[in-house]
């Protein structure tokens, strides 16, 4: 049935504020364009690359080692020095340790959602799930940060404003904002020689004269009547605009270059790591460079109930190396000033190592990596207790983190959105950003 709710989340009451007739016809498309502007005129618009470590990475084995703790808590890795005196990371984080002066580690975000579905929801939307949800549940009660960025910021040149690579997060959807703000998913592997971003160029075997021929043929065969008067509300007009935007994107050298990793220097590609995640980091940088405000990289495999140390030894060197390469590359290009990089998961892991040499879910403590976009580097915010059981100093919430992200993206975290039923909903219930990250 056509549940014909207004998916712009604009209630009729809102229309009044917009003035008579403002929403009639193709007004929404125009509204979209207006939002594609820089937050601060003249300055480069800010962007966010959110690296999601699905499963919940251990805080002990990443950024919050406890070398003084008993062995059953400490684990097998040493704490290593970083480029910032007094700050130590866990042994696997070698390349990030070397650039710790660019990073801020927040060690004191905590919440009370100990399963993947709920933890994902809380961290990625800044709102706790409204009802208890199961561990493997996929839920969405509130728009994700990426969808809000797309809604509030948009992107130019037909570019989607929110990418999720290679898949959408459990709670990464737009919820009541509507499908227009769902992430543009790029499932293909950029480490493959045949990699292409889906749908932004004609199929491979339709060479360019034929593709151009199709475009003009389409124009010649299009005899569908349009009702040009906006008050008629002809939905075909909106689709026409989207075809225009689509062609703009397909024809935009800048956008197409953003998707083309082969333009990168081979040595730089090597530095990012010749693997799926490494090349996805590189793609994220290129997208941000082209003006995309929000890119999520979804990278699973951090739910180490079993064989945590083996898992880290195998995976982390390449993984953290890619993140370090991304941050350094952004920095060298002058993009780090306007690009927020986050790496986080649902929660931290239990203090005591379990019988399977793993750690279990633990939302009393976690570590979040933050860099760029005016975040002062070389600091640690907050702390857990001596054994890493719980955030104990400067205790912060997922709301604080979401408020930080929104503020850096030029979006008021205290903004009120209206659900299709007219209910006012705060973007973030506690709109207080983490001041140490605000510079």
């Amino acid at each position, binding site marked *: *049935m*056509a*549940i*014909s*709710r207004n*998916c712009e989340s604009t209630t*009729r009451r809102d*229309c*009044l504020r917009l003035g*008579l*007739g403002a929403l*009639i016809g193709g007004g929404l498309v125009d509204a979209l364009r207006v939002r594609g502007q820089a937050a601060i005129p003249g300055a480069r618009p800010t962007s966010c690359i959110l690296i999601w470590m699905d499963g919940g990475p251990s805080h002990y084995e990443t950024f919050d080692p406890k070398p003084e703790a008993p062995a059953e808590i400490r684990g097998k890795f040493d704490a290593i020095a970083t480029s910032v005196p007094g700050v130590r990371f866990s042994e696997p984080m070698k390349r990030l340790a070397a650039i710790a002066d660019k990073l801020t580690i927040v060690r004191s975000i905590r919440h009370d959602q100990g399963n993947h*579905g709920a933890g994902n929801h809380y961290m990625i939307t800044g709102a706790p799930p*409204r*009802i208890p949800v*199961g561990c*493997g*549940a*996929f*839920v*969405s009660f509130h728009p994700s940060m990426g969808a809000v960025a797309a809604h509030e910021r948009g992107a130019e040149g037909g570019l*989607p404003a929110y990418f999720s690579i290679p898949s959408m997060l*459990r*709670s990464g959807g*737009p*919820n009541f904002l*509507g*499908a*227009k703000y769902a992430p543009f*998913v790029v499932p293909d592997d950029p480490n493959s020689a045949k990699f292409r971003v*889906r*749908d932004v*160029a*004609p*199929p491979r075997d339709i060479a360019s004269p034929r593709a151009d*021929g*199709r475009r003009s*043929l*389409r124009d*010649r*065969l*299009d*005899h*569908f009547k349009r*009702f040009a*008067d906006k*008050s*008629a*509300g002809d*939905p*075909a007009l*909106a*689709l026409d605009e*989207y*075809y225009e*935007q*689509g062609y703009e994107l397909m024809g935009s050298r800048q956008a197409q270059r953003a998707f083309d990793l082969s333009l990168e220097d081979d040595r730089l590609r090597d530095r990012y790591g010749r693997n799926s995640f490494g090349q996805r980091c590189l793609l994220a940088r290129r997208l941000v460079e082209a003006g995309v405000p929000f890119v999520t990289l979804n990278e699973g495999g951090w739910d180490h109930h079993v064989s945590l140390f083996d898992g880290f030894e195998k995976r982390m060197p390449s993984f953290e190396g890619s993140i370090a390469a991304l941050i350094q590359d952004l920095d060298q290009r002058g993009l780090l000033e306007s690009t927020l990089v986050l790496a986080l998961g649902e929660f931290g892991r239990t203090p005591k190592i379990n019988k399977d040499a793993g750690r279990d879910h633990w939302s009393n403590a976690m570590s979040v990596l933050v860099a760029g976009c005016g975040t002062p580097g070389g600091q640690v915010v907050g702390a857990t207790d001596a054994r890493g059981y719980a955030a104990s100093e400067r205790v912060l919430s997922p709301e604080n983190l979401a408020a930080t992200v929104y503020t850096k993206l030029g979006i008021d975290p205290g903004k009120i959105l209206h659900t*299709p*039923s007219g209910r006012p909903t705060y973007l973030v*219930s506690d709109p207080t950003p983490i001041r140490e990250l605000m510079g």
Partner: protein
Amino acid sequence: MRATPSGLVIFLGVLTLAAPLTSGAEPAAPVTFEKDVEPILTRAGCNAGACHGKASGQNGFKLSLLGFDPTFDHMAIAREAGGRRVLPSIPDQSLFLQKATAELPHGGGRRIEPDGPFYETLRRWIADGLPRTPADAPKLERVVVEPAERTLGREEAFDLRVAAHFSDGSTQDVTHLAAYGSSESTLVAVDAEGRVKAGPIAGEATISARYEGLFANCDVSIPLPGEVDAALYDALPRSNFIDDHVWAKLKKLGLTPSAPAGDATYLRRAYLDVIGRLPTPDEARAFLDDSAPDKRARLVDRLLERPEYAEHWANKWMDLLRPNPYRVGIKAVFNLDGWIRDAFRRNLPYDQFVREIVTARGSTFEQGPATIFRDHREPIEIAPVVSQLFLGIRLDCAKCHHHPFESWGQEQFYEFAAFFARVDRKGTGLSPPISGSEEVVFSGKKGSVEHPLTGEALPPKPLFGSLPPDVDPEADPREALARWMTAADNPYFAQVMANRVWADLMGPGIVDPVDDLRATNPPSNGPLLDALAVDFRDHGYDVKHLVRTIMASSAYALSSEPNDRNIADTRNYSRHYRQRLRAETLLDAISDATGVPDDFDAAPPRSRAVNIWTNRVPSLFLDTFGRPDPNQDPPCERTSDTAVVQALHLMNAPGVHEKLASDEGQAAALAKGDKSPRAIVEELYLLAYSRLPTDEERTVGESLFQEPGADRRAVVEDILWALLNVPEFVFKD
């Protein structure tokens, strides 16, 4: 006028005339909290959901949402914060006033003017020692807005007057205290002072004035200027009662209907509406060549008997009913899906369909509807789902607070939820992400629902009216609920379904959103909705009858092309409103036009998108075209919008391209065959648009085959690609 549970609106017209308005505050009358102060707090927005009225309050000061709990509010103002909010000895120094006037920094800015009447009232109340309104004071009984109805010229304006009527017969002018809203603010705006202004477009709107939880409406209509000869309306075809109501409404607004749609347009529209697929070229030719006068009615009858009817309509109900298999388990969801499809195959009468859902019991592995009770486990979860889906009454707000735009209170919510208090389960509950166990739903002996504030156990009580008199107190209370819901004198039940089906076939619902029936969201054509619902009820809630009746009307068969006198009409069905094909229909249409079926996970080979039993089955195409996100709560959101990614996907997606270019596909077959270019172009137009090409289109198509070096297969593919990328393919016209 339609029944409303509050009964408020019904009496408006009469009562407006009765009582002359007295002026507001007599100087001698004492200022008391409930009567004088709360309304100001509401009017100034202090207790709005975005400010102190939200569940956590604002800056340590919390009021009940929109002032529905005066005792709480009085306490918050008079006692909390060590009583420093109000200082009766020096009222002007009260924090309460200094914040409201922004004399002290206030996040909400200046809400009260320091030299205005509101300030004076609040100040006096503080100075007088914060009196409550005595319990025996006259009660507010109703609100009356004047005028109750008004016809406006374009851009014309007028002022509303709102009167509060009390139990002692007294009245108070509350125009300056009421809150106003317009049901169609693009047509008619209303400002905070109750000034109503028409816009440039003809149409109708209802202006609601809300005061202290009660409201009253003023219906405004703006006819299109200029005279239309009454004979025009008399001469319009009247196929059934629908046309009478639609034409009457158009006449009232001075709108004229578009011309009837041509056969090809009707054909494609009917196929897409009834069975969600395109006619084959042979089916199209046969219909277009048929010269029988009743061929449209026979077409609809034939379509209603096709097996695809059930799949298409069941697919729509899946959006509303089907839970996330990660939450409730694959088998339970699959079982529910099968039950819904089967219900539409059997054309199960709608009242029975709903009764089987509301009273579901048995194993989630055997009884499809039981799965709904595996998903919604608490009475307070299932109650608003049932009321919204089957009665069009949105109760969710009332779970936590009085519904701000309706008359539903918290008590009513919990009384309604109490019908589900005895639902019990045996077996293993939810254990996501597999949740694979069987559960048996049954009606237990015990179970109650308590009011969240008073803790009192509430008896099951319908939202309005009364239960059938012969209810067995021992029986499952849901039986009584189902009988009350489906009773012939419950207008909501038939209306919400009639409205859903109407919206599927006609574009916007008569009430829009389709499941939000309330006095402040009135139908665009009340008599039409009433008549449709009565006809649906009188025909045994036969859904196929409802579809057939709507499709038999002349209104259904209008062209989408506007004329000078209906171009801005988007609510009164003076023309057909274009709709984008839903995701599954569009994908299946592409599969049919290209002759290449899909291969979905968790489905038999050659399944169609409409057969998919859960939105967890991956499909980039369906995601791109807005099928509901299966993670989302509530699960019923589907978007019919277009987006740039849709254009890109149709043009470039590998999945679509593979179909076009497949050696097994339609394009390859046509290229390989011995048809002339002319015949190929004709076939392609019939495949994609269910019509023959115009001469010009034929010429363009044929000429491509004649170009030097033209590759026959590539030409066919290119034409088909172009046809699929024109809005004529994407929209139902």
